[in-house]
């Protein structure tokens, strides 16, 4: 015989303040837990979206990032001729030879604080290889000019990058002519301009990276083997998606570790809260428990009833925490990715798996917090319990 659910539910409702405080504590823990997962999910989503599965990135062997890399013109030309690389209808190889530098710009919130922004010089082919990028304001830079366009995260986060304003670097003035939307990718955090102009301005003799579209998605191994065997080339080849995922591996690990450590510590507090509440529920309802037992409810039902009450309490907390966390999806975070040493913006992203994890987490808290009190309730002797005041 099971204790009716309405009895359990009403018990929580009767002690409104206590229920609210306990559930509130759990809601805060679930909020932090969900927020961290959402941040990590947002970071990953941004970087996964940045890489197209058919594109590969080639950089100097061992250089890890585009900024540290250098690929000579003759090397880039060799890469271009590889048969594994796709060609356009007019026979042009789908290859973009780019230069990437970091420029420290003042933040919009405090001009004394600067952060490194990726400035990418690219040919027209570079835009073809990234169809997700589109202009939302102004226009695209003209090839061969000192014009630049800024990603919308850069436009939001940094000062002096409005359309019509000029950035001065490498002894030249660069005019902002447009703002582009990178479709929630890492490109949103970049500034784009003409590759040859930038090479000249920075007096560079090497490209930073070569982006190429594979003729078929499976051609990567063949391309890698060919390039490895060529003594004139010393390059690392990666799928674009992998390249961007590797760029943020340590930031992602940092966020996850920190978040999980915090969630575990904080959940101790919330579980203690649940235990206090449930112990008190058991204590104040001793005679009720006696009555239930006398009516014929077995020990297991009493145990289950109190456990369900605790789980319900936790679930309410978990739901509140999740609802609060879902409001975070409107927020975009911008920070320096230590691996690439440049600013990267990403949004809190709520995924179905986070919803499930957060609710499971709250249920676990409810179970741990309510288990011992429930055991205590189920172990009471009928006579003693009925005799209690």
């Amino acid at each position, binding site marked *: 015989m099971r204790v009716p659910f309405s009895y359990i539910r009403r018990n929580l409702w009767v002690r409104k*303040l*206590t229920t609210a*405080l*306990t559930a*509130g*504590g759990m809601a*805060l*823990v679930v*909020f*932090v837990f969900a927020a961290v997962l959402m941040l990590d999910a947002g970071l990953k989503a941004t970087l996964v979206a940045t890489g197209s599965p058919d594109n590969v990135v080639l950089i*100097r*062997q*061992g*250089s*890890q*990032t585009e*900024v*540290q890399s250098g690929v000579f013109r003759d090397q880039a030309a060799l890469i271009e001729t590889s048969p594994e690389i796709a060609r356009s209808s007019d026979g042009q190889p789908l290859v973009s030879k780019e230069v990437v*530098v*970091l*420029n*420290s710009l003042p*933040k919009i919130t405090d001009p004394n*604080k*600067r*952060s*490194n922004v990726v400035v990418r010089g690219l040919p027209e082919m570079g835009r073809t290889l990234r169809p997700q990028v589109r202009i939302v304001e102004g226009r695209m830079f003209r090839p061969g000019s000192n014009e630049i366009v800024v990603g919308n995260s850069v436009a939001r986060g940094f000062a002096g990058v409005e359309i019509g304003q000029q950035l001065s*670097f*490498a*002894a030249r003035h660069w005019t902002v002519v447009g703002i582009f939307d990178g479709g929630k990718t890492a490109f949103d955090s970049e500034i784009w301009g003409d590759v040859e102009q930038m090479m000249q301005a920075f*007096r560079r*003799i090497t490209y930073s990276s070569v982006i190429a579209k594979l003729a078929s998605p499976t051609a990567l191994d063949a391309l890698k083997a060919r390039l490895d065997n060529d003594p004139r080339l010393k390059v690392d080849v990666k799928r674009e998606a992998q390249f961007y995922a590797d760029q943020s591996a340590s930031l992602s690990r*940092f966020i996850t570790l*920190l978040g999980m450590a*915090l969630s575990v*510590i*904080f959940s*101790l*507090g*919330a579980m*203690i*809260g649940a*235990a*206090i*509440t449930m*112990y*008190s529920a058991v204590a*104040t309802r001793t005679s009720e428990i006696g009555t239930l037992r006398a009516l014929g409810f077995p020990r297991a039902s009493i145990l289950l009833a109190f456990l369900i009450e605790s789980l319900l309490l936790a679930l309410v907390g978990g739901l509140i925490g999740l609802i609060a966390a879902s409001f975070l999806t409107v927020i975009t*975070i*911008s*920070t*320096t990715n*230590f691996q690439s*040493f440049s*600013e990267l913006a990403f949004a809190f992203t709520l995924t179905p798996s986070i919803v499930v994890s957060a609710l499971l987490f709250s249920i676990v808290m409810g179970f741990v917090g309510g288990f011992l009190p429930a055991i205590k309730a189920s172990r009471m002797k009928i006579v003693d319990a009925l005799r209690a005041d």
Partner: protein
Amino acid sequence: MLFFVNLVFRNVFRAKLRTTLTIVGLVIATLAFGLLQTVVRAWYAGSEAASATRLITRNAISLTFAMPIYYREKIRAVPGVTAVAVSNWFGGTYKDPKNFFAQFAVDAPTYFPMYPEFVFQPDEFQAFMRDRRGAAIGRQLADLYGFKLGDTIPLKSGIYPGNWEFNVRAIYEAKDETTITRQMYFHYDYLNEQLKKTARSRADFAGVFVVGIDEGPSAPDISRAIDALFQNSLAETLTETEKAFTLSFVAMVETIVKAIEGVSYVVILIIMAVAANTMAMTARERLSEYATLKALGFKPGKVAAMIMAEAFLLAILGAGIGMLLTPIVVQVFHSLTIGVFAKMPLVAHTFYLQAACAVVVGLVAGIVPAYRAASVKIVDGLRHIG
């Protein structure tokens, strides 16, 4: 009065299990708060070690751009400048990409006199100066990787291709608490010599210049004078104090640091809910007692004060134990994250904040029950069943 104190104590410990659980919760929250605050401080450890009599000149575009080495002589001629040294970030990893620590190529004869906080054995320093491939290692770094004098350290760098090897010739100690000795230094001349052989176009460049200045003239004036020298050149410079320079790194990850700080207050909210709940339950169960006290002639204020005192006692006990344990937990945490944080300074400010939080928790937890008990009508209270 003694009776009052006695009553408060007995009431707090009447429900032993509940009180114990609440105190344990408070201890955990206080510890978590103290630890997070300390972690936030740890980000700023580098800037606390920085000096105000040293300036850093770097390429205005960003740190990833170098400056021609001849800038050194031009900067040295600026009035107020006493010394100029080159420092190049090497960015190498030791054996495994995970083993990452700071390495700088410096012109040692001018660099180290500007850093009196690094204490060398004179004979070791001489040995370091004599070996072109010599390296000077900080004590913390030596302990972290077990480097000893005479060891060879192989490094791979993402910035400078090839395999590099350095010989440990000196291990320097910290002069005081704030000094960070987690870096490796080697000779700029050696780096430059190798670059001339392998990557001619990258030789004769400096990552940053460390500029020593007189105490007298103001650092901002000297900074402006230096930057004016290179205005409209290909490599314009940005000069700031070493402190501002190190703080600029913290500013880059400010969002994360701020988030950690914000979260540290969430744990206080959580424990506030737990403590408030405990007090609310206590007060509800004892409403008839409060009515009895009032019937015996206790003033409402006194009854309220009693409940507030209970709430504060709980908060103080929990926070007190938490504060006592904080140094131990910080130490354990630091030993676990020694690869990430060079210093984890536990400061008095953290303890003040912990104490302040305890007071707030006590106040919030006690105020509603105290008000209820003070305002309960004797008749209703006596009739009340917990």
